[in-house]
């Protein structure tokens, strides 16, 4: 699995956070502006050249992005992943959460765009109709690819070595109860997203209203025209020429729905995060309670 995602050879990513990934990947917030992107791409090419230089079989099949609290579902990610996946079928994006990892559990996930979304992206048409037609919802935007981490034996040996050396406290970090901050942050981020969602909906609402209003006007206009033509006909005059209705009534610009899809996806991730987190914490709390009772 590792070889599949990070290049062909057995190199580069024996461990998820080691040099290979860093060299090829993008830094956190790969969404940065184009200049930053350019630098990153340059770095990427550099790395490729270097790899070729030492005669290593290389094929890059994706990139990684570090993020925190799972806030990675963005437009930038979508665009980048699309271009990768468009060029190389097998491309994936690795999402790495350093904060969560620091708390004791490795947080590494691989994602791909679903074929449906790929099609929509190829069309570059994010109008409500197109999305509706494609039958895409936020659940079916990304598909998670299971990750299997495979290290070389040497590294396994090192890991064993380290584990023995590490202090007891480090091992029990998982059991730490002080995690309210994490939850708070998640909630706040979720709130922000909900706000955005609200705005988006309001925007969409206005659009809908405008369209229907215009539709009504158009209808009225057509009726009037028809009536007049009828009169003219009865008087024996030639009917009025047909006018281009689309010129008279320019339909309002429909808001791009992709953003709201992304936001919904993001909200979904947050919710899952929170769910996961609270489930774990509840377990911990119960454990702690049991322990305390036992001690007493």
């Amino acid at each position: 699995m590792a070889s599949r995602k990070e290049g062909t050879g057995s190199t580069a990513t024996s461990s998820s956070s080691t040099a290979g990934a860093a060299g090829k990947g993008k830094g956190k917030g790969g969404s940065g502006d184009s200049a930053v992107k350019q630098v990153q791409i340059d770095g990427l090419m550099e790395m490729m050249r270097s790899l070729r230089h030492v005669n290593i079989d290389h094929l890059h099949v994706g990139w990684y992005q570090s993020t925190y609290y799972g806030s990675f579902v963005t437009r930038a990610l979508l665009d980048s992943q699309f271009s990768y996946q468009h060029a190389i079928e097998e491309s994936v994006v690795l999402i790495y959460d350093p904060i969560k990892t620091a708390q004791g559990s490795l947080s590494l996930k691989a994602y791909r765009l679903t074929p449906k979304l790929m099609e929509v992206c190829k069309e570059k048409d994010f109008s409500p109709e197109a999305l509706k037609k494609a039958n895409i919802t936020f659940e079916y935007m990304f598909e998670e690819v299971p990750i299997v981490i495979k290290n070389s034996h040497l590294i396994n040996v090192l890991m064993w070595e380290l584990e023995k050396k590490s202090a007891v406290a480090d091992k029990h970090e998982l059991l730490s109860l002080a995690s309210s901050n994490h939850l708070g942050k998640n909630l706040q981020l979720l709130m922000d997203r909900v706000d955005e969602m609200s705005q988006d909906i309001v925007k969409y609402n206005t659009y809908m209203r405008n369209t229907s209003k215009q539709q009504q006007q158009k209808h009225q206009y057509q009726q009037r025209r028809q009536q007049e033509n009828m009169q003219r006909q009865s008087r024996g005059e030639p009917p009025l020429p047909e006018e281009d209705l689309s010129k008279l009534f320019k339909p309002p610009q429909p808001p791009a729905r992709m953003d709201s899809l992304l936001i919904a996806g993001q909200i979904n991730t947050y919710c899952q995060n929170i769910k996961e987190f609270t489930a774990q914490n509840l377990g911990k709390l119960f454990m702690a309670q049991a322990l305390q009772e036992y001690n007493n």
Partner: protein
Amino acid sequence: MSRFFTTGSDSESESSLSGEELVTKPVGGNYGKQPLLLSEDEEDTKRVVRSAKDKRFEELTNLIRTIRNAMKIRDVTKCLEEFELLGKAYGKAKSIVDKEGVPRFYIRILADLEDYLNELWEDKEGKKKMNKNNAKALSTLRQKIRKYNRDFESHITSYKQNPEQSADEDAEKNEEDSEDEDEDEDGVSAATFLKKKSEAPSGESRKFLKKMDDEDEDSEDSEDDEDWDTGSTSSDSDSEEEEGKQTALASRFLKKAPTTDEDKKAAEKKREDKAKKKHDRKSKRLDEEEEDNEGGEWERVRGGVPLVKEKPKMFAKGTEITHAVVIKKLNEILQARGKKGTDRAAQIELLQLLVQIAAENNLGEGVIVKIKFNIIASLYDYNPNLATYMKPEMWGKCLDCINELMDILFANPNIFVGENILEESENLHNADQPLRVRGCILTLVERMDEEFTKIMQNTDPHSQEYVEHLKDEAQVCAIIERVQRYLEEKGTTEEVCRIYLLRILHTYYKFDYKAHQRQLTPPEGSSKSEQDQAENEGEDSAVLMERLCKYIYAKDRTDRIRTCAILCHIYHHALHSRWYQARDLMLMSHLQDNIQHADPPVQILYNRTMVQLGICAFRQGLTKDAHNALLDIQSSGRAKELLGQGLLLRSLQERNQEQEKVERRRQVPFHLHINLELLECVYLVSAMLLEIPYMAAHESDARRRMISKQFHHQLRVGERQPLLGPPESMREHVVAASKAMKMGDWKTCHSFIINEKMNGKVWDLFPEADKVRTMLVRKIQEESLRTYLFTYSSVYDSISMETLSDMFELDLPTVHSIISKMIINEELMASLDQPTQTVVMHRTEPTAQQNLALQLAEKLGSLVENNERVFDHKQGTYGGYFRDQKDGYRKNEGYMRRGGYRQQQSQTAY
């Protein structure tokens, strides 16, 4: 040459009929003799007299000249224009004409013009040739002049009967002029020249002036005389105008009453002298003129003018100096005042000389006072431009003069001075009755004060010069005090109010160090207190202000003086830390309500007072009051402009030059300035002391409002900094301190607010710096405690007050009182446990998570609502069902909201 002499005598004989012509000499007439003639006063006296008259007459003659020119080229339109101007000019000169009689040249032009017009009118053919405009102008002018001449009928007829006389005068004048080489001379010579060749164009004629003049001198009498005659009779010749001018010069002096017989004799003698001199000069001049007659001539004229001014001659030698003479002289000098071309410096000198003469001749104090008044007025007049300020020497003179004047007034209590005394009712010398002099000492002093302000405004405040000028302030104050004493005795209440205000304006901004010292050190040993007393002879400024202001409050009837007095009074109170008096006075005056209707200087004063009030409140530890007082000034970001301490550059394009000048004049002189950095620091620190606990208390409240926008702006600026170094500026210090305070870390906060840098920049500027610093430390401790409790109460079940008192180095009762207050105000959900001296938290407030969850729920509610609307739209009328649901949501929200949104936790705490 003999001709000059004869004509000279001729004119003399004439002068006996036509008044005192001899005494008067043309301008700069005795150019050569001038320096010698110091004692021989007569000529110069007359000369000075003439300047007013001269100006008018010159105007007239110039106009006449153009008319004549126009007549010659048959430009009737031009004639008409000029004639109208002439009429106006004559109107202006009316006062002089009344005195001197109608000038002959004026009559002459009127007569000639009429003749000329009639001639044109008769000349049918010529008329036909005329263009339309001219023809029209001709008829108008003809009518006009007919009408106009009716007033002068008698003069004109007499002139027509006896044109020679004027011609003779001209001739006589002519020679005088030619020998005197003044500006009139060219006219004269032109006249003579033109009489010979009257057809020569006048423009050219001027070029030959000098030469012709000389020729003229050599030419025979008879020929000349003939010329005169023809010239005067042929009305359309150019020469007429020149002659007219001569008549002007001549007739100017006609009405002058001969002073004494002696004068006449002296004049005769002089005439002879002149004639002699003429010989010498003539030869010299001939050489000179050949090269550059005109230029040389002009130059000499110019040289002559200042000379004359430097040596002002007052009276003829031997004239008995009486009151009447001096007053007349004074009036003559004053008539020139304010007119264009009057040398103001010379005028001042003349007046000063006059004072000397008056003093020498013991004419009494009345006259001297009157002249002094006028000297001061002339000194003020010296600068025609409002924006420019007096020169130091002028200023010094002015101060001295006022002082002298005051001396006299104090020494002679029987002199009455007042604006309301009319010129006619003045009594300058009758010693039996009290002397009455017109003039207002108060106005003079007010003007002096203005000038002082102007000088200060226009001096670079960082230069030694400014210090030098500032030294005059004491003198100004002394003068004001003297005038005050004088007016207290003699002035009306109104005047007293005005001088009191002036006094107040010079007192209110000064910190009374002596009084301050006295307050600090109560009298100890007898020896020391004696010494103190000697030092403290003067009235306490507070007492003084009280006395002056109360008088104004009681007696003043103009609103402005009272307003200013109140503001100054408040300012003075505030400056001396009498906060409650200052505040009460401010509130009682109700000035806040209507100050926007006042004029800008008063508004500036109001702003200054408000600021001073705020700073005073801060010194007293009343942060809230300080903040409120300073809010208006600081929040606008234009404190500099509002306090009149500088112009803003950015608004330069909005206002034009004129406005800028006005604004510049409004600026407060530098020594009255309020330190802007101190002001801002006081404001920011008081905002910090208010805002930080407030922010801590309302951390999660979405609807909380800012107390001080400016403070928040500073905080944001601080946050935006990518790299935070140690604070440098005052603002950075405050921002750093605020951050420390947010964490309840009062020690760091303290070290940021009070340290070397801040001491030097701000705190040491207070008169009681140490007291302020102590107050500030205490405030920081208290507010930090409050902030700490707001921020961290959620992590405590209970907290011992002793711990708190240790943490914040406050004594237990204070901690107790602060916490009690917070509990009473429902800011802190806790109760005090008396036996253990602990604060027990109730934990009724939602925690951070709970708060967030509540907010999230609220937001989700609105999201659903919005979503439903979209759905409604799609479904058309189908939405009724969901509407009910919505209400359900609202209910839910209401339910959730019950807990309130006070949050006690900040994420940064972790």
